[in-house]
């Protein structure tokens, strides 16, 4: 039962079929790492490592073929980007058109902090600027006296 549960749990994680695997465990590990960072364009939120689409299978084979031929990781990524565009990378590349994507959160944080500081400064100033007037002080002490009596 437990074994069955494990099987059901494990299956969707790997779409790589046994016969696709490379004999060299180091190369195979690199192939897996690369595949996990390559988007399957058929089922667009899955990596080719996860996907059962035939295109994903073809791309997995292609990645392994190139690794065996001695290609570097970047060469393989570049090969795919040349054909399918940046969208095939699950990690958006860091370049001029994606600066906003990468720096955006930092900009929002800075703007947020700036505004917090401004608001805090302002409320502090308001509190310290105006001391209680004579009238307010009298009514305050009255209120306090009333409270003491009850």
């Amino acid at each position: 039962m437990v074994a069955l549960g494990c099987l059901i749990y494990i299956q969707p994680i790997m779409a790589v079929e046994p016969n696709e695997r490379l004999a060299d465990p180091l190369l195979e590990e690199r192939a897996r790492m690369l595949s996990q960072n390559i988007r399957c364009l058929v089922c667009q939120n899955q990596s080719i490592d996860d996907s059962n689409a035939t295109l994903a299978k073809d791309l997995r084979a292609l990645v392994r073929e190139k690794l065996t031929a001695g290609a570097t990781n970047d060469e393989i990524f570049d090969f795919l980007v040349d054909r399918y565009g940046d969208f095939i990378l699950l990690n958006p590349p860091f370049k001029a058109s994606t600066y906003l994507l990468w720096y955006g959160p930092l900009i929002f944080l800075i703007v947020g902090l700036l505004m917090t500081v401004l608001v805090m400064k302002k409320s502090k100033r308001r509190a310290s600027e105006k001391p209680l007037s004579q009238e307010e002080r009298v009514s305050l002490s009255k209120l306090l006296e009333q409270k003491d009596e009850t």
Partner: protein
Amino acid sequence: MAKTIFVLPFLVFFGVVTYFIIPIVKKSDPKLLPSALIDKDVPENKLPPLFENKTGFDHEDLLGGETLVNFFSSWCGPCRVEHDILMKISEEKTIRLFGINYKDQTQAAIRWLDELGDPFEKIVADKDGRAAIDWGVYGVPETYLIDKEGKVRYRHVGPLTERVLEEKLMPIIQLLRNKKDE
């Protein structure tokens, strides 16, 4: 300064909303991707012809005139849907039409063309789908518009329709042809 900065979040918010609403209003499908090959040379693949007794084509045969290159398969449902449009393009000689038979069995492809008609001037067979990867194909049918210099000008993913032909392809084809006259 202190006052105006509070307007900033609203401006940013409306900016973001507008950015995301435009594709919804325009009903554009985010799953359709622009081709990475636009304005680049077509890949140089040497593929065998589908029919043994007919000639195939390669990147050099695409020079000299505008061409539509259509990836199709006998197992692909949407390809059947677009077949009438392809036949029409072929009958009316709108533009030169070449086919690349994607990951198909030769006999099945030939039977399919016998049944529905063969709109292609030339057909090559991409049995293992490797050439298609060079073209950036991610789902058949896909149609590429190639200019007379052999550069990719437009890519349509999914079945061609009358509307796609009239509104997307024809304007670019006209533009390319006008350029030729100059």
